[in-house]
């Protein structure tokens, strides 16, 4: 059923540039020449500037706010407080996960950096002066900085605003089968445990969040230029929060400088700027500084996980138990599908065929910024994938087996697909063994193991780490997946113009993924119109069909499918027009290379361009004019990209620093539309995975002060320290996706952290080291070495 090949074989010519062609990105012409158009580039006449006053405290009662000094500054137009917003019923707003969040704090602040007031001024410098002059009287309260503290019996209650809330628990959630798992564990020879904290990280897009709210005092129409990965969903949220009629709200999400999940939630700044524009009657611009972006907007991860793997002495995995605590911050603003409190964490059984699994998780409020976004990971899949890959590696050590052979013994086999996992997911397709063997061959696994043994004799610390991950993307089928009730379908509208050029309008929104190119290529494939003749429009709610936006690697699986289908629908109509033009029966026509021709007489043919012209000039009786359509796609299932990453590291025993010598990444994301763009996505993800394993985390002191609130402390790797990546591929199409594509935006972030960490543990396991939490900072390695010597 699955085919595994080494190469894409494009069907279209390079001039058409359909699927499989590495054509250059259309959007790069403007982006690399500095001619992009980002929110902060936009200047409107009479525009005012807004700066937020933020809390220096992580938890404190607000006794009062004195804005008189700020109001006295020349150029300050207004100071907005929560009290003022309350008059408009805007002091609180709903989050994407059904909780409420303060827009501007009224009762107390619940995390450092929380929005307390806003200063609107004629320029951003004066706005900052004004913000510095606002005096807020706080009484500090005891602070909770992790979920364990939050669950203590005498813990202060953070959400005093919620009626009858007597603890800090956000939710409790479980998946899998507890009884079956106990049974599996009873049969096991050994149980291998990994306890680890997947640290809080931040998507940190280079462009911070911002908005220009332009509410017309005359018509009441609100045009919001906004950093949004999901403009349509945001419009609906705005309609609900602000009570504005939805047809009067237009969200324009122009070029985005990265998103990675950070631009999915609705932030207080957007709401305040909109309210300010509404009240003042002028456009209001708000652009976060880097500091503000890091301390207050959607973080990711922050999971405390305990995983146990039940194995037999022969090396068979029987079952998996996971217990987790999730640090949700002060408001539950997780951007996950509503029914899934732990996102798609059920993928935690990974690439392995095991009988039973059980996952329990508890979300806890803490005095930290809200969030829980999918930072380049499809809804908690990064945490799940990390845990199972660390467990599998440690189980192999426990059984004194080679980690690759141990994986081999437990992989789901190609003939088991579609495969129903112990947690109830149905994997669409996969061939894990082939991908792993390919990666092993590329890196020279057997030779590396020989070299490792030699290095060890010389006292050097050398390690090889594997991760054979399975990702789960493309949310999702409407029966299970929604965000605040909005089903997670997506859409495409395609119009072919008389000259045979086309415009494709999408409900999703690129942040750098290359949609303007990739989606044009899908149309090129289906209709034979050159990709360069297709303009892709997105990010403007007035001009695109409704969609849930781009995150969770869902654009290609969902909107990509919608695009292929709408193009096929147009091709059906084109066939009827061609029949009319060729004076033949539609059934007698065949489609090839962008042409319909009469079977058996290839000279009798019309091109798609001829047909497009005829659609407006020469139609059969009774047919509607035009060649256009729209399709809303509700995916039948998710897609399951996979792959194997292998990393070789060497550790400096003196400093604990580790260096990647080799990094091989074999990815299988089904059919690759633009292989170059796919490679780019993988490079980015492997880099972010490296960052999280090596240097990157959000951390706080006991008072809840964020210690990593600037780029001098929140580390983003540069080209210098980023390892060299060697990429490989296998291609196992998704059987349920119209073009067999699976989505690839996040595979590498999901799969790679475990590969790096497994390599480090592999270098140290002969010294008795079984775990080091991420980021594997040099001092943590050093400490592990000290402890193992002691």
């Amino acid at each position: 059923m699955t085919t595994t090949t080494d190469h894409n074989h494009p069907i279209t010519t390079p001039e058409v540039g359909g699927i499989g062609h590495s054509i250059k990105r259309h959007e790069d012409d403007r982006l690399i020449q500095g001619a992009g158009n980002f929110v902060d580039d936009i200047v409107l006449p009479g525009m005012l500037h807004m700066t937020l006053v933020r809390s220096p405290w992580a938890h404190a009662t607000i006794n009062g706010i004195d804005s008189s000094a700020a109001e006295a500054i020349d150029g300050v137009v207004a100071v907005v407080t929560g009290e003022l917003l309350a008059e408009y019923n805007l002091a609180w707003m709903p989050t994407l996960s059904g909780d409420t969040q303060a827009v501007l704090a009224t009762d107390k602040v619940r995390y450092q950096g929380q929005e307390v007031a806003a200063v609107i001024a004629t320029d951003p410098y004066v706005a900052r002066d004004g913000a510095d002059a606002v005096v807020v009287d706080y009484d500090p309260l005891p602070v909770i900085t992790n979920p364990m503290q939050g669950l203590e019996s005498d813990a202060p209650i953070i959400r005093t605003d919620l009626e009858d809330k007597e603890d800090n628990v956000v939710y409790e959630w479980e998946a899998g089968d507890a009884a079956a798992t106990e049974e599996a564990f009873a049969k096991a020879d050994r149980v291998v445990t990994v306890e680890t904290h997947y640290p809080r990280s931040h998507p940190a897009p280079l462009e911070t969040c911002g908005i220009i709210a332009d509410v017309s005092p005359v018509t009441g129409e609100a045009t919001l230029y906004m950093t949004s990965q999901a403009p349509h969903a945001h419009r609906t949220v705005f309609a609900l929060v602000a009570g504005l009629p939805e047809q009067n709200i237009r969200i324009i999400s122009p070029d985005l400088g990265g998103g990675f999940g950070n631009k999915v939630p609705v932030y207080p700044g957007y709401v305040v700027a909109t309210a300010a524009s509404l009240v003042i009657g002028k456009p209001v611009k708000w652009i976060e500084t880097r500091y503000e972006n890091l301390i207050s907007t959607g973080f990711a991860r922050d999971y405390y996980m305990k995983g146990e793997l039940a194995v037999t002495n022969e090396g068979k995995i029987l079952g998996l138990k996971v217990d987790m605590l999730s640090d949700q911050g002060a408001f539950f603003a997780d951007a996950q599908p509503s029914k899934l409190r732990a996102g798609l964490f059920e993928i935690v059984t990974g690439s392995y065929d095991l009988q039973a699994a059980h996952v329990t998780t508890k979300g806890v409020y803490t005095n930290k910024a809200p969030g829980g976004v999918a930072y380049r990971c499809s809804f908690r899949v990064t945490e799940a994938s990390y845990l199972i890959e660390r467990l599998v590696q440690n189980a192999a050590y426990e059984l004194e087996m080679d980690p690759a052979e141990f994986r081999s013994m437990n992989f789901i086999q190609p003939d088991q697909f579609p495969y129903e996992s112990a947690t109830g997911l149905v994997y669409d397709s996969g061939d894990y063994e082939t991908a792993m063997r390919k990666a092993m061959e590329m890196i020279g696994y057997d030779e590396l193991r020989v070299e490792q043994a030699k290095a060890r004799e010389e006292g050097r610390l050398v390690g090889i780490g594997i991760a054979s991950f399975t990702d789960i993307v493309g949310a999702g089928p409407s029966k299970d997946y929604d965000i605040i009730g909005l089903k997670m379908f997506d859409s495409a509208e395609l119009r072919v113009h008389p000259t045979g050029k086309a415009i494709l309008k999408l409900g999703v929104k690129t942040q750098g993924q290359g949609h303007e190119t990739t989606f044009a290529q899908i149309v090129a494939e289906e209709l034979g119109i050159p990709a360069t003749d297709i303009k892709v429009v997105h990010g403007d709610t007035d001009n695109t069909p409704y969609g849930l936006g781009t995150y969770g690697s869902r654009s290609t699986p969902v909107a990509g499918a919608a695009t292929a289908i709408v193009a096929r629908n147009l091709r059906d109509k084109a066939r009827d027009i061609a029949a009319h033009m060729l004076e033949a029966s539609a059934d007698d026509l065949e489609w090839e290379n962008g042409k319909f021709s009469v079977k058996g007489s290839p000279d009798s043919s019309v091109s798609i361009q001829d047909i497009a012209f005829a659609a407006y000039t020469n139609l059969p009786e009774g047919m509607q004019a035009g060649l256009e359509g729209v399709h809303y796609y509700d995916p039948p299932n998710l897609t399951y990209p996979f792959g194997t990453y292998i990393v070789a590291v060497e550790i400096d025993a003196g400093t604990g620093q580790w260096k990647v010598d080799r990094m091989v990444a074999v990815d299988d994301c089904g059919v690759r539309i633009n292989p170059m763009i796919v490679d780019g996505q993988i490079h980015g993800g492997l880099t972010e995975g490296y960052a999280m394993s090596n240097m990157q985390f959000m951390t706080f002191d006991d008072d809840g002060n964020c210690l990593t609130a600037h780029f001098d402390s929140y580390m983003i790797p540069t080209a210098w320290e980023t390892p060299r990546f060697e990429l490989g591929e296998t291609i196992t199409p998704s059987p349920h996706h119209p073009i067999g594509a699976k989505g690839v935006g996040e595979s590498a972030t999901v799969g790679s952290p475990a590969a790096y960490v497994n390599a480090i543990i592999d270098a140290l396991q002969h010294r008795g080291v079984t775990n080091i939490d991420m980021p594997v900072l040099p001092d943590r390695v050093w400490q592990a070495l000290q402890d193992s010597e002691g």
Partner: protein
Amino acid sequence: MYPRAFDYLAPETKEEVLDVLAERGDEVKILAGGQSLIPMMKLRLASPGTLVDINRVPDLDSISIGNGHLTVQALVRHNDIVNSELVTTENAAMASAAPWISDPIVRNLGTLAGSVAHHDPEGDWASVMLACGAQVVAESRDGGERVIPITEFLTDMFTTSLQPTEMITEVRVPRYASRTTHEHAPPRGGGNYQKLERKVGDYATVGVATHLELGDDGGISKAGIALTSVYPHNLKVTEAEHLLVGSQPSDELFAEAAEIAKSACTPASDVRGSAEYKKDVVRVFTERGLAASLAGAQR
């Protein structure tokens, strides 16, 4: 990142700069590369009333050989030092440290003089200058020129003995003794900078500057060790230097010096690592740095 309002002056002669300093004194800040001052202003940690930009002052950007030393003028950029052949042959500690200063963008603008004037305990240059025994040359309109030994110049973290009316015109760094005494003899000095950073562009978690000169008998005639980021200011480890001078170099001797450096520092535990860890890295780096310096001197 919005600084408070300030006056900006960009004179075209040194005399005018000194006039501004003499007249506006305390409220003025000299702007050189701006790689420390501008970030502090943007974070509103510093809000000088006046910036006097010295980048248009001519003849302030050369590296040359003076009397027994290298002269590094106030507008010499970190990258000028990276690319200087003079530095490569005359002072290995500087040559080794220069590429470790931040990233290419910062190196294109930031200056050695600005770095020592700023005296950030996480700054790399002050340690190198302490290890080598540099001198800072300052000038003011009314006081003329002062030559200040680096140990007297650096007083405390973010503090120096520079007067508000003074500008640094150059920094003088010793050349190796053998080079200056007999021009054609092989260098008998070596130096090194070891730095632990999390990524390119990061300040040091730990930095160790070492400088060694050998006498004709192969014994150590001059030694310098200074540490970055592990003490409230850049720390010269005098006790270890004394141990080394007059002895024949050996692994055991270096290990002993490294232990002294380790116990001299008092790093803080923070996101970069625990205090014990940093202390141990000081030890490891001091050993490695001395070994590399010796190898350079024996070349």
